[in-house]
């Protein structure tokens, strides 16, 4: 044993020497020195972790994270943030939610004091000067002053042309609000309330901030613009298949999946705080398959990587479906799958076959009315055959949902009925003409395949299942038609070999993964899951891609099972306290209905993009269609959808809706009669039929909690040109005469600078605030009270101010109340009490769904008949607008919630209990219009109101809702919420800890007993119908327009061919402007939309500034090296960026990450000689006609439920190396 000591004698000697010269005691072994004192430096690191306070807050950034954070304050300054770790446990046998958070969230506090922080109200100098001068000329009346400025083109053009060119000056709050308010009052008075609009997306990210503004706009009658469809995040397949919008599992449920596909979703990048569930689940044996055209970050976690060519995912999914149908349904019957499909899908239902142009095509669902039944709503009760071949009208279809007779039988109980999936084995069959669009240019042709048929009540019918087999090319002996010879037949749609030629994924791999997906579901009881997202959902034909995905999860019985089914994550959609939020945000307590507009159509018209849209609506028609769109352009289709009441349309008419209200009152007629007469006389027209007329376009727009121009504004250059009248770089020209609309008026002069006021509320300077006329400084997420929920976890999180809003900033809540007060004052003189004629579309989850049997288009204009509101025309309502009382109404919960209750997804809650609770919790108003009503004048009041009026956060309401629903379904449901009946979640609860929600009929999943949320669990386990025609999940979607496009059944449609449609060069070709490539805009690792991209920390972690990712092959062809400056040009605009040349990228495709801010490193472009554009400078809106279909069953309108998507993934661009000398 050696003695303790130092390493070497020399060291020993030195220390022995040193011990005599230093203070303190050196130990005998010479290893330690003991000293007393000298600890002054401790205070440094002790002080580092001592704070004034640590506050719980979160981020409202539409990232779906919904992470709870500790925000640290020291000496009154926010220093940093760190992850909260007190999430309630998920339970045994599972990982936990905590900690949650990503580098972006951890960088947020930088914004509080950042150079781009908006600290004061700003008005563009030109406008401020004009306003002050005009006010002096108009006897100090701000409304008259505004009227003079916008009514005098010479004045208006001065400030409109200055947009985007800086020139902001500080204004006082009073003056900035006065200008904004005057613009509102003047516009309502002159043009009508529906010429004003509010845009604020994703309520779930900060519900109160959203509701504060939404409440103001709905109270004054201004439309709220939808965002989900506009963002192209809305999967149209969800309404088509489920009759529900984006009900998806929480990320904790990924743990329960044993087979997980990531399809167009880059989980580690876009769901960072949730990605751990995937990595953990792999340790419990989960197989992970990634489908992504590039070597995405998710790919490294994958056991298998499939790399289909961009936008061809539908073909791959069809091939997998082909294998599943063949091996699990036809070659053998797998009882669990067959049973699931019989009970929970429309597969056994009967569809008629019809003759058309000498061909047999799928017709429509057979209904009880066809059987001669005359019960209530028999036209909406679908029919199937039982095992004995007898026609049966099972419970649960739309016909049972509304009305007296259906009470107690809207359920999926089949009783003794064993539905027949297929008619195969009988004698009759028919050759059905089915469309195929698998040519590279997407053009349609016909393939004929046979289905077994029989006669029921004089109709030749087959089942949806038999049609599905035909569509997927799964043949059965003896059936006529063209069928593939096997999996290896590339010529016939549906097979693995067929998809290989389209996607590039090897046939055997597609076959094997499809088989594994189904086999795993069979073995595990439905625990196969597909996480899907924007990568596959932002294409023009994404609905077809998604329907092919959903076919996989539905056929294999995974929907409604924990660990299985679809998991579509895009934005932070889930407002868990849904009912409460809807009441306060839509002012449903004071006036109904609110105006809610489809965002895409709004921008399509307002930004003039329709004028450049040169393709015909019938470009996508199926050869099996009836030429319903012949001669029409997209805007004609939009106008038709509006006049039939399918989709909302604001501004609605070419009259001021207030004047229209007066006129109706004066006439003594019913609104419908008056409007019909005036339309017939030609005095009244729909605004969308002449969108460029001065009386028809929007005038005032407010953007808050959003960066419209920097993030979601597809066709950025068109926004700049037509909406704002600013400098732009539109490269293409308007549609030629022969390509112009049939029904919609074309004006030679297209207006520029339509908008009189763009008002932006933000805490940082963005691409939107730069173009705004008035910018109001908003509080950040660390400076206000609010609520936040997400799809990804079941907790309600609170925002709490760590500091008061600094400088002159205010919370959104305060800003809108300030605006409302000034507005109310100005309204005394200029507006008063008026009657507003509100037109609203036929709504989903209401009896409106039954206005159009079989979705057959009956156009009153074409027929020359008189339109009937609520049937083939929008519903019309006379709504009183007490404009001077706007502020008072905003600040109190109105009486309609007591008298009418609150309706969510067709279920009405009685809110008298919550209202009486809120009177005590918030106090009541004394005097005025809101005398005695619960107060809503503080942000915390609104938090309490939202929580009290929602089933997810008020147990008594959840139970009450289920009890109401039980009366309709006749099944047991209320026990799902009974465990929490006495629980009222308060705002204080959410501030103390992430608070789990209660199972509620507002949603379709169950959290009972701490279960992980998975959608449709209640439907599957409690036989509650889906909100569709059959009450089941649909493979066959019935509507004239669906038939017209040949999309009644899942079918593959390739990405749009921009060469053929818009004469862009073909992909891969080289020209003067460089190489032509597919241009995709997926999400970045270093930002959440545009947020964080300009954050110093994220700029340091990333390359910083605008970048475009290219493959080495493409870069090589045009001599581009890594980090070179490049210029991308197409007909829509110009972008200057640096190239990132990476092997991650496949040849022929480039990525420009979504929403890179124009405030960071954007030089002047060589092509346009103007500042280079942003990612959306190269995109443009293209609307798909079927997204405008409405008025029938699940294809009926609801806000953010259905509408045309603002898709942008089909675009191409030319890229070249530009001069490396850049100027700014």
């Amino acid at each position, binding site marked *: 044993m050696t003695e303790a000591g130092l390493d070497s004698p020399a060291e020993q000697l030195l220390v022995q020497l040193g*011990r005599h*010269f*230093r203070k303190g005691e050196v*130990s005998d072994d*010479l*290893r330690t020195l003991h000293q007393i004192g000298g*600890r002054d430096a401790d205070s440094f690191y002790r002080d580092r972790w001592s704070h004034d306070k640590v506050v719980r807050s979160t981020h409202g950034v539409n990232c779906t994270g919904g992470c709870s954070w500790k925000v640290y304050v020291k000496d009154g300054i926010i220093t940093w943030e760190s992850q909260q770790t007190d999430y309630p446990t998920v339970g045994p046998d599972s990982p936990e939610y905590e900690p949650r958070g990503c580098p972006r969230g951890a960088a947020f506090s930088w914004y509080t004091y950042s150079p781009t922080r908006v600290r004061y109200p700003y008005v563009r100098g030109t406008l401020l000067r004009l306003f002050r001068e005009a006010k002096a000329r108009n006897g100090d009346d701000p409304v008259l002053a505004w009227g003079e400025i916008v009514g005098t083109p010479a004045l208006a053009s001065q400030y409109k042309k200055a947009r985007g060119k800086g020139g902001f000056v500080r204004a006082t709050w009073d003056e900035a609000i006065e200008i904004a308010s005057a613009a509102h009052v003047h516009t309502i008075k002159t043009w009508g309330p529906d010429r004003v609009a509010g845009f604020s997306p994703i309520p779930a990210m900060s519900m109160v901030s959203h509701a504060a503004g939404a409440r103001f706009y709905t109270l004054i009658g201004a439309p709220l613009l939808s965002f989900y469809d506009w963002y192209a995040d809305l999967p149209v397949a969800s309404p088509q298949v489920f009759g529900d919008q984006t009900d998806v599992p929480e990320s904790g449920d990924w743990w329960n999946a044993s087979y997980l596909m990531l399809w167009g979703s880059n989980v580690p990048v876009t769901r960072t705080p949730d990605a751990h569930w995937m990595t953990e689940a792999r340790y419990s044996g989960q197989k992970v398959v990634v489908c992504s055209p590039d070597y995405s970050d998710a790919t490294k976690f994958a056991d298998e990587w499939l790399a289909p060519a961009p936008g061809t995912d539908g073909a791959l999914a069809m091939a997998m479906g082909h294998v599943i149908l063949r091996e699990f349904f036809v070659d053998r019957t797998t009882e669990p799958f067959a049973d699931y499909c019989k009970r929970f899908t429309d597969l056994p239902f009967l569809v008629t076959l019809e003759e058309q142009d000498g061909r047999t095509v799928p017709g429509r669902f057979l209904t009880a009315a066809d059987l001669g039944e005359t019960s209530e709503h028999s036209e909406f009760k679908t029919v199937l055959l039982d095992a004995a071949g007898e026609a049966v009208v099972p419970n649960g279809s739309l016909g049972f949902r509304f009305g007296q007779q259906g009470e107690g039988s809207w359920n999926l109980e089949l009783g003794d009925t064993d539905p027949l999936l297929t008619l195969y084995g009988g004698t009759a069959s028919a050759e059905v003409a089915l469309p195929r669009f698998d040519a590279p240019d997407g053009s349609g042709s016909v393939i004929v395949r046979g289905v077994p048929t029989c006669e029921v009540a004089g109709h030749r019918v087959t089942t949806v299942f038999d049609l599905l087999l035909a569509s997927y090319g799964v043949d059965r002996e003896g059936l006529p038609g063209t069928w593939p010879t096997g999996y290896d037949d590339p010529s016939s749609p549906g097979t693995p070999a067929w998809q290989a030629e389209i996607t590039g994924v090897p046939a055997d791999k597609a076959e094997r993964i499809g088989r594994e997906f189904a086999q795993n579901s069979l073995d595990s009881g439905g625990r196969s899951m597909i996480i899907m997202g924007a990568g596959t959902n932002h294409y023009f034909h994404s609905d077809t891609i998604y329907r092919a995905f959903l076919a996989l999860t539905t056929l294999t019985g995974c929907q409604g099972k924990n660990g299985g089914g679809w998991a579509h994550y895009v934005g932070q959609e889930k407002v868990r306290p849904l009912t409460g939020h809807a009441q306060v945000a839509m002012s449903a307590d004071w006036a109904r209905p609110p105006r809610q507009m489809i965002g895409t159509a709004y921008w399509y018209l307002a930004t003039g993009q329709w004028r450049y849209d040169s393709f015909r609506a019938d470009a996508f028609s199926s050869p099996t269609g009836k030429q319903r769109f012949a001669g029409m352009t997209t805007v004609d289709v939009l106008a038709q959808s509006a006049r039939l009441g399918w989709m909302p349309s604001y501004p609605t008419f070419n009259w001021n809706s207030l004047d229209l209200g007066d006129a109706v009152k004066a006439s003594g007629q019913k609104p419908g009669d008056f409007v019909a007469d005036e339309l017939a006389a030609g005095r009244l027209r729909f605004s969308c039929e002449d969108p460029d007329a001065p009386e028809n376009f929007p005038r005032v727009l407010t953007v808050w909690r959003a960066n419209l121009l920097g993030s979601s504004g597809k066709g950025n250059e068109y926004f700049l040109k037509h909406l704002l009248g600013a400098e732009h770089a539109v490269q293409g020209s308007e549609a030629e005469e022969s390509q112009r609309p049939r029904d919609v008026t074309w004006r030679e002069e297209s207006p520029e600078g339509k908008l009189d006021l763009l008002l932006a509320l933000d805490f940082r300077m963005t691409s939107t605030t730069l173009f705004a006329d008035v910018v109001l400084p908003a509080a950040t997420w660390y400076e206000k009270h609010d609520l936040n929920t997400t799809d990804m976890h079941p907790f309600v999180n609170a925002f709490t101010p760590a500091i008061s809003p600094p400088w002159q900033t205010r919370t959104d809540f305060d800003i809108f109340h300030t605006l409302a007060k000034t507005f109310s004052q100005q309204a005394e003189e200029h507006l008063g009490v008026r009657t507003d004629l509100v037109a609203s579309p036929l709504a989903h989850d209401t009896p409106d769904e039954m206005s159009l049997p079989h979705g057959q288009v009956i156009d009153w204009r074409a027929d020359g008949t008189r339109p009937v509101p609520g049937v083939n025309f929008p519903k019309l309502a006379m709504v009183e607008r007490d404009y001077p009382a706007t502020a008072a109404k905003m600040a109190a919960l109105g009486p309609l919630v007591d008298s009418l209750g609150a309706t969510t997804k067709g279920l009405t809650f009685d809110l008298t209990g919550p209202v009486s609770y809120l009177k005590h919790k918030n106090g009541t108003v004394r005097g005025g219009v809101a005398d005695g009503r619960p107060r809503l004048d503080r942000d915390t009041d609104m938090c309490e109101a939202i929580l009290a009026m929602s089933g997810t956060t008020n147990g008594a309401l959840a139970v009450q809702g289920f009890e109401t629903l039980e009366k309709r379904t006749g099944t047991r449901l209320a026990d799902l919420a009974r465990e929490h009946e006495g629980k009222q979640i308060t705002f204080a609860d959410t501030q103390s800890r992430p608070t789990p929600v209660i199972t509620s009929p507002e949603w379709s999943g169950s959290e009972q007993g701490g279960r992980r949320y998975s959608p449709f669990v209640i439907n599957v386990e409690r036989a509650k119908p889906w909100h569709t025609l059959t009450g089941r999940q649909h493979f066959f979607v019935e509507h004239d327009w669906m038939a017209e496009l040949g999309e009644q059944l899942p079918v593959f449609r390739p990405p749009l061919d921009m060469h053929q449609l818009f004469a862009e060069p073909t992909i891969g070709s080289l020209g003067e402007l460089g190489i032509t490539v597919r241009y995709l805009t997926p999400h970045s690792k270093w930002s959440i939309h545009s947020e964080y991209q300009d954050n110093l920390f994220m700029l340091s972690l990333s390359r910083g500034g605008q970048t475009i990712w290219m493959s080495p092959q493409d870069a090589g062809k045009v001599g581009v090296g890594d980090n070179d400056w490049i210029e991308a040009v197409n007909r829509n605009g110009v972008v200057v960026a640096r190239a990132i040349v990476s092997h991650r990228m496949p040849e022929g495709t480039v990525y420009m990450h979504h929403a890179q801010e124009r405030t960071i490193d954007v030089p002047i472009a060589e092509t346009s000689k103007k500042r280079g554009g942003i990612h959306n400078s190269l995109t443009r809106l293209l609307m798909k006609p079927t997204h405008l279909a409405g008025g029938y069953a699940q294809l009926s309108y609801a806000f953010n439920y259905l509408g045309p998507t603002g898709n942008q993934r089909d675009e191409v661009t030319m890229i070249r190396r530009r001069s490396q000398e850049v100027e700014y």
Partner: protein
Amino acid sequence: MTGREQLLWVVLPYLCLVTFIGGHVWRYRYDKFGWTTRSSQMYERRILRIASPLFHFGILAAIGGHVVGILVPKSWTESVGVSEGAYHVVALSLGAVAGVCTVVGMALLIYRRRTVGPVFSATTKNDKLMYVVLAATIVLGLVTTVLGNVTGHPHDYRETVAPYFRSIFWFSPDTARISEAPLGFQVHVEMAWLLFALWPFTRLVHVFSAPIGYLTRPYIVYRSREQRPARRGWEPVSRPDQRGR
């Protein structure tokens, strides 16, 4: 004494020295966490490994030479029997080695600093100024000495510069002596004064925190709190059962 001499050889030196001393006090008190070498070893190691010791040992030897040559009066060395010739040979030979080491080391360091991207990125304006002054001082010193010897007219700075320098500390600057020195020496000295003035505000402060103590220190240090008088209201309270004991 002309006004010019007064300015150059009296006012400026004292200003620089005051700045040198006051600057260090200030820096130590207000910027303790900024008292650093600002090491760039993290960014580049290969060149540094050779250049840094070369430079540092060279400059340490040069400083030693200055101590002997300037602080020690000529009379002292002569009294112990070191002739001017012997002194000169030793000083020149050792000085040349040290000087070459310093200059080569410094050249390498500057080359590295300019050409290695991360190192250059971590170079502040302050660093650049310091490099210029430091390099100028060193090069001037070397050039003057070498030129003198090469031309065969070595100047005996122990007659001019050294007495002047020492006289600064007696507070009766002997400007006449320094005025006799050749221009090269004069410029070198002025440069040195400037360097002293700059010193406390640059990374050069690390000279005073060279980790020599580590050589003789045990590697584990325990520090206990010193006894502090309790703050008012925080005096320890004895437990009831201990009362009256």
